[in-house]
């Protein structure tokens, strides 16, 4: 479904990622692990059309989407949950969800505000509150819910565990596992391995802008020295 072919990107003249390739089948999930600054965020932003690719191709559902505008890519069926969440703070929780709505929803059971609230009862309780008053965990749930409102085939999640307490991370992991079962493909970047493996079966590890390892979590567990070398302190 998603075929990223040797993309290179950066900011101004600063190189952030180079020769990054990976594939993702429908309903499959992939985690990108790596330390801070390894290029995970840039990879997701490049897929989303928010950072221009200097080189390479990105094919989504058979179409080349590289360097299309982000609204076109979103309408093609990719939902995006950015690292900083970027919820609209002055809008209420419900209004935030409505901004993610897209015309011509496909699929048997399109996402609605009610369905998002079923998935995240925590934010349902605060549906009328300005999003700026939410806690970090609630903001993250809102950002995921907002992306789901567009009924994406593929969900991009950029470090959803960032800055969250462990118990909230667990809660988020359960929700992502549930989403996977419903057939949405997930591409998640994470530093928190536990959450990553709840959300995905396959994994690539990035280091200084390049892919340094690719495989499954099961394989990775058998090689603790890779973990220590690429991810450890």
């Amino acid at each position, binding site marked *: 479904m998603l075929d990223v072919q040797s993309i290179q990107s950066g900011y101004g003249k600063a190189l952030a990622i180079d020769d990054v390739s990976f594939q993702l089948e429908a309903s499959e999930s992939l985690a990108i692990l790596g330390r801070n600054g390894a290029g995970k965020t840039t990879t997701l932003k490049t897929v*989303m*059309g*928010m950072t221009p690719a200097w080189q390479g191709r990105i094919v989504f559902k058979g179409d080349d989407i590289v360097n299309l*505008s*982000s*609204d076109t890519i*979103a*309408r093609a069926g990719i939902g*995006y949950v*950015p690292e900083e969440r*970027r919820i*609209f*703070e*002055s*809008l209420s929780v419900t*209004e*935030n969800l*409505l*901004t*993610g*709505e*897209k015309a011509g929803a496909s699929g048997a059971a399109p996402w609605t505000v009610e369905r998002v609230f079923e998935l995240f009862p925590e934010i349902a309780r605060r549906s009328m509150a300005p999003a700026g008053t939410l806690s970090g965990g609630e903001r993250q749930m809102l950002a995921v819910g*907002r*992306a789901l409102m*567009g009924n994406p085939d593929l969900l991009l999640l950029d470090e959803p565990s960032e800055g969250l307490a462990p118990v909230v991370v667990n809660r988020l992991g359960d929700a992502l596992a549930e989403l996977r079962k419903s057939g949405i493909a997930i591409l998640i970047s994470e530093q928190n391995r536990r959450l990553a493996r709840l959300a995905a079966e396959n994994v690539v590890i990035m280091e200084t802008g390049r892919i340094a390892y690719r495989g499954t979590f099961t394989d990775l567990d058998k090689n603790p020295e890779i973990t220590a070398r690429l991810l450890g302190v």
Partner: protein
Amino acid sequence: MGFYFAQFLTGLASASSLFLVAAGLSIIFGVTRIVNFAHGSLFMLGAFIAYSISQKFGFWLAVPLAALSVGAVGWAMERTVLSRLYGAPELFQLVATFGLVLIVQDAALWIWGPTDLLGPRAPGLTGVVRIFDQPIPEYDLFLIAVGVSVLAAIWWMFTRTRFGILVRAATEDREMLQALGVRPARLFQATFFIGAALAGLGGALEMPRQPASLLMDLNIIAEAFVVVVIGGMGSVTGAFLAALLIAELNAFGILILPEITLVAAFAAMAVVLVIRPYGLLGRPATSAPHAVEIQPPQTLGQTGRITALGLVIALVVLPFVAGDFVIVLTADIMIFALFAAGLHFMMGTGGLVSFGHAAFFGIGAYAAALLVNNAGLGMEIALFLAPVFAAIGAAVVGWFAVRLSGVYLAMLTLAAAQILWSASVQWQDVTGGDDGILGIWPAAWASGTTAYYYLTFALTTSGIVSLMMLARGRFGILLRAGRDAPARAQALGIDIKLRNWTAIVIAGSAAGLAGGIFAFSKGSVFPDTLAIPNSVDALVMVLLGGLHAPAGPILGAGVFALLEDSLSRLPYWRALLGAAVVGIALFAPGGIAGSLSKWLRRRREGTA
């Protein structure tokens, strides 16, 4: 008691149209980040179009139809000009909307003619109601109701419709909204339509209160700028509160001292900005875009230096070979070159945009005139004090501006110039109003055409050369550093606010000196030295010449004077100027000198 309540209601009624215009301006800014200088023009168009429709279909049909037509004009402006400039430096967006002001003004002159057109009164609302025994026009009460209803309607749209929710989201984080699949182009078009329609509605509703006139555009935009700065850019409720505040200040201020209404708005703004730097309900801007394109300043080079030397020699020998007409024209060009050089210094080197630079030129001219005529001082002292007074004016405007982001400076300078212009027209006891101040003649030793020419030459040349040296020297380099990368500059110990403020004061005093010389050269001062067209002229000179070329203002002033001499007899010369300004913003941001040096470089590289 009853009288004061009546006065209060009059204030509320005036607040209505001000609110409609400011709300539209604010909504457009929130979504597109463009300050639409042509917003006052849309208000004016609303008044004229409503007048025309009312002649055939009556008042009540004219108001909504005018609002919709003006909405369509706003939409067309967005499509044809502004949509091409969303990624451009702030200066060019502002300049383009400024060019539209000139075009719309001449278009209105062409369609409706120069005379004011008084529309019909609103059928059914021509009477008065007595409240506390005071007569209140029914129409005033209607206007108050409209203001409140529009606020309610906007609130409804913002909270109950998907479009409104998207507008609010875009005001907060446009990039994120786009990543959720929302097409920015459609949102921008719709926003421009609604914002313009609100301005048009405001203009149409003025029909029974004031005639449609060609002065409406700049008068309302100056007030609307003050309102959005007080209310907070992007906040509709803030605009409502600020419009109320300004209108009531005017309504009650006029009882105490009519002249005070002119400064009351500025005083209110000062108080608000000291307490809340981003306005009553505004938020700090997340990222300030660059005001101008970041480019290395061009240098004169070998040819340039020889040309400059040749020019100086030519200027010195000119009186020996030329007649009086050429001598006076050349002196005028030198005066305007100095005026433009100050603006060029703050805009090019400092990235600080002024759209009301004539304010400082006019202060200099009036200061010189009043010092000679009223205080009985000599020309020498008057010429010395003219730039000092202008510097004080620039210090006041600059004090506000350096506390806020780039667009505010452009807005505040325009508002200041417009308010000073109204003051010069209305404060007849001191300024002589439209009749101006006459009989300001140079001292005896400088009174001949040739003698005054040499005085002009000496003062303007030393002014321009000082500005050039300042731009190239330590002060200019550190000013440019602050323009290029403010955070970096501060981290090196540069006090950017102070430096920018100083640059504004320097540019203001250069304009003031030019204004002082101008006053003695003409022997008189009129309000048009302060008026917006004079500011536009300076701006066009700077842009024509090239923002990053050291000789830009001289070249610009020369070319402009020649153009004006040959073209200003054309009936719609201002519209041509406006079109040229829009053209520069869209196609030739480097101006003449920029395009010329680019062409030379390409030719040199081609032959090498």
